[in-house]
């Protein structure tokens, strides 16, 4: 690993069980500043759960998560403060249907008092312009297509100026013709140096945009390397099997 890179997130012996079922088995990983991780694997392998533990949407059964030097699994840590720095994008967008697009973006910065209303509006308008949806500022989410919703969900997270963005299958719920516009936006973010962890089925994205690809299977990360080697020369038999099915 490049020594110059600043460590952003570190997990130590992360385990998570739902009842008798152990979903994560002793995961210790490091994510550095500016890295773009693609996390792939068969469904039920624990990749979404792993992503969701990183901002504590799922509390790990054991193990620690250190974000920017703070152990966020420590109960005395104000998790809301930490989450302000960890953006998250969901498969089903989860825009707030009772708020307009502009309010969706402004809500969190204003309510958490990170920005004044004016600052938040300025920021939101700039973000809307970036994704070319300025004309949708005052409509409600029900008026948007899936691709538009997901782009709004992404900029809603960006409005908090996060240090890292987590994507949980961001294109899986989209019609095929809308996948491109979302990936393009994510690619743009990656180019700007945003640290990203992306659970995805888009092998193209993993190949082109990510600089690390993780293969998860049965709660463990079985492979973790740069995309060329990952796709060109897979070593793990189950990864070979997986790739032969998806490629």
């Amino acid at each position: 690993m490049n020594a110059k890179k600043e460590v952003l997130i570190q997990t130590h012996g992360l385990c998570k069980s739902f009842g008798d079922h152990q979903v994560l088995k002793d995961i210790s990983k490091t994510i550095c500043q500016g890295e773009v991780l693609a996390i792939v694997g068969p469904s039920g392998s624990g990749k979404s759960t792993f992503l969701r533990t990183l901002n504590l949407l799922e509390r790990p059964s054991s193990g620690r998560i250190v974000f920017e030097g703070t152990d966020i699994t420590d109960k005395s840590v104000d998790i809301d403060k930490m989450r302000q720095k960890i953006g998250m994008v969901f498969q089903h967008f989860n825009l707030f249907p009772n708020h307009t697009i502009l309010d969706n973006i402004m809500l969190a910065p204003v309510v958490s008092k990170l920005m004044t209303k004016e600052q938040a509006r300025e920021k939101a308008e700039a973000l809307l312009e970036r994704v070319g949806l300025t004309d949708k500022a005052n409509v409600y989410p029900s008026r948007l297509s899936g691709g538009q919703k997901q782009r709004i969900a992404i900029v809603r997270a960006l409005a908090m100026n996060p240090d890292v963005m987590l994507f949980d299958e961001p294109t899986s719920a989209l019609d095929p013709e809308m996948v491109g516009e979302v990936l393009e936006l994510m690619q743009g973010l990656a180019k700007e140096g945003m640290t990203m962890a992306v659970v995805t089925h888009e092998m193209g994205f993993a190949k082109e945009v990510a600089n690390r690809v993780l293969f998860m299977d049965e709660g463990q990360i079985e492979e973790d390397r740069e995309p060329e080697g990952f796709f060109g020369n897979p070593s793990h038999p189950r990864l070979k099997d997986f790739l032969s099915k998806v490629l």
Partner: protein
Amino acid sequence: MNEWIQKFHQNFIEGDRFLFLLKGLGNTLIIAAFAVLLGIVLGFLVAIIRASYDREGKFKFLNAICKIYITVIRGTPVLVQLLILYYIIMSSMNNKILTAVLAFGLNSAAYVSEIMRSGIMSIDVGQFEAGRSLGLSYSAVMRHIILPQAVKNVLPALANEFIVLLKETSVSGYIGLMDLTRGGDIIRSTTYEAILPLLAVAAIYLVIVMCLSYAVGVLERRLRTSER
């Protein structure tokens, strides 16, 4: 025809008997209005405690108390609750209106809380997660995201509960309170004429309920268009 005009005169005009209805209506409206208010405030609190327990395991102890409260209130007739409150718990106060407001308010709160809880639980868990992932606190997510949507979803059920409440206040006469129903009954017992006073009472309830339904319909439509 003349006979009915005479009966009308006898039942409502003579001795200013319509005042019984008017006074009774006033009391009914006062009781219903404050009971609804109490029902909403307390019902919301109970609903939030119960839903927070269901969703996040918070407020374990308070949740248990709320559950007992709901079980007792829903498991006994409102008339019995009213009598217990009047003759036992508040026997030293002898404030009939206040007793009725408390009885019907506490009763309604149990139903409102279950309606509201179902509303909160019906909101997709992704809405909670999206709010929390943006760094908003649990209460901020509730206030800005969950409750506005939940209230809209359960508005018809809430409106129904308030209509039931308004009509349930008609048992207030049992503690000697002159509500609308008792007012009509007083006329009946003085004129020995049942038809006109009772039909008048029924008609007044009906008009109030229709007005309420209309107002809720307008509110519902307005809320629905606000998401498009």
